[in-house]
């Protein structure tokens, strides 16, 4: 009989990914509501230090699954390793953070169990022992409540920020179980990870950010945002499509593949608010959104919103701020 929740803890070169703590918090919350135990699993070549670190959380045990072939991440290696641990543990739920790494191997893993993942969940609710998971669909425009059915395990990934890592409960020292896993042929060879350019602009310290998205329409219009940023003494930033089009350099990009910021004031101009952008700025103090689409998901997290033409609103806003500051 399947039992318990197995949580996957992600690390890079022995440094724990912060979303792993969020996954632990998520698993603990589900465990509390369903009366299950949470065990954590780590994959790597030598995991002693990391296993100790994870064992400080309130967990049943920490499974350190080791093999030299797991020294760097590959989807083949991680899938083989995780599959063995899951078959041995027979958990009811496998909880993982929805990171780029998990997205790369977890569908392959779940496929070995004849199913997919309930991916990118933003919350979970338990009624009478049954879990309802909420996923965000249509690029954030809608939420879907999903029930997972069929045989165990249910594979769930949680979106970054869905749970708070600092709420992962500490325990009295979980038992560490070291296992050596068998890894078959690893077909892909990874090279060392690198950063394209040293980030020239550090927006994480910025107090005021004016960010532009698709709605700005052309490179020539960016000057409107620039003038607003100047009037406020803030920095200019952008959503991904703007940097992809090279209208602004990539070190101005906010979101999951760019920088994560939390300024005092964040003004989003013509940004619809796809999840990938929101995760990079949703902890900002005051959020302003100007967008022609009243249904744009950015308005869900905005304190102030203007539904309308940004080409009318932005110059007027800049003028008004200049007047008030004078």
């Amino acid at each position, binding site marked *: 009989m399947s039992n318990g929740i197995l949580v996957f803890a992600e690390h890079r070169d022995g440094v724990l990914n912060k979303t792993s703590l969020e996954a632990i918090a998520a698993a603990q919350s589900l465990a509390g509501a369903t009366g299950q135990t949470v065990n954590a699993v780590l994959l790597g070549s030598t995991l002693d230090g990391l296993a100790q670190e994870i064992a400080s959380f309130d967990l049943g045990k920490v499974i350190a699954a080791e093999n030299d072939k797991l020294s760097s991440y590959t989807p083949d290696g991680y899938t083989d390793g995780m599959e063995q641990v899951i078959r041995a543990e027979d958990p009811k739920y496998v909880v993982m953070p929805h990171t780029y790494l998990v997205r790369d191997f977890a569908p392959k893993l779940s496929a070995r169990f004849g199913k997919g993942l309930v991916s990118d969940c933003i919350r979970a609710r338990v009624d009478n022992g049954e879990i309802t998971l909420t996923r965000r669909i249509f690029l954030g425009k809608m939420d879907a*409540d*999903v029930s997972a059915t069929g045989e165990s395990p249910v594979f769930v990934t949680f979106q970054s920020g869905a749970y708070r890592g600092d709420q992962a409960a500490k325990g009295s020292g979980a038992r560490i179980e070291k296992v050596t896993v068998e890894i078959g042929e690893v077909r892909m060879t990874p090279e060392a990870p690198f950063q394209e350019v040293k980030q020239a602009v550090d927006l994480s310290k910025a107090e005021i950010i004016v960010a532009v998205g698709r709605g700005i329409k052309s490179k020539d219009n960016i000057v409107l945002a620039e003038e607003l940023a100047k009037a406020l*003494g803030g920095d200019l930033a952008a959503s991904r499509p703007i940097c992809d089009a090279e209208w602004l350099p990539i070190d101005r990009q906010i979101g999951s593949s760019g920088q994560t910021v939390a300024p005092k*004031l964040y003004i989003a101009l013509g940004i619809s608010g796809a999840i990938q952008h929101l995760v990079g700025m949703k902890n900002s103090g005051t959020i302003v959104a100007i967008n022609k689409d009243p249904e744009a998901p950015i308005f869900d997290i905005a304190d102030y919103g203007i539904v309308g033409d940004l080409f009318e609103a932005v110059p007027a806003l800049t003028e008004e701020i200049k007047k008030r500051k004078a």
Partner: protein
Amino acid sequence: MKIIVLMKQVPNKDAILRVNKEGTWIEEGDLSFEVNESDGYALEESLRLKEKHGGEVVVCSMGPQRVKTVIKDALARGADRAIHIVGDQLGHLSPFQSASLLADALRSEDPDLIMTGLQSDDYGYAQTGVIIAEILGIPHATIVIEIDASGDQLRVKRELESGWYQWYSMPKKALLTIQSGISQIRYATLKGIMAAKKKEIREIVASTDGMNPSHQQIQRIYLPEKTKQTQFLGDGDAKRGAALLAEKLQTEARVY
């Protein structure tokens, strides 16, 4: 090199979505559809690989007859032929079910490369490609932003988080999921549109009998609960909104 590109048709990005009366999906009747954004980039990369290394680009889409729009557009941009897996409800399968159908349809084609977008803009599962690779027993890489197919092995640049990247090498029969925005997508030329009319579109009627169950069932969909109470300013008048906003930012939020 034979490349198969998987493309999905999804509701238009700017479409106003309305929940159907059962509350289980959106009202699709009056919606306009477009190609899933990242799948468009997967096609563009495939065409560029073909231009460099020769071979064939086959586009494959699954769904009702309306997905022919996506297929014809891909043929007009330069794909050589198409496979249409026909079925009204095929857009609503679970990732494992979709992947199983697609893998069955593609097995006999024995492509060197299967390309698709990193996730769909409707369900957003981000799994179908990877599961196809597992079913077909070929290696994969996700969130790919650059492809070097000039050597014996395939070398691909993957995007990691927070501005990090990594190159991976793997054997050439592989599946790649492509990130949006990595190149400029070409337009269909008039010549391309004319040529497309003569290109083959093979229809496969898919059977969902005996398929694995879905394992995830949507109970209901709804507009996201707001985490903040947004003050909407200007009531449709953008200029008045701007004036009010300047005032509120100074006196209420006190951010300048």
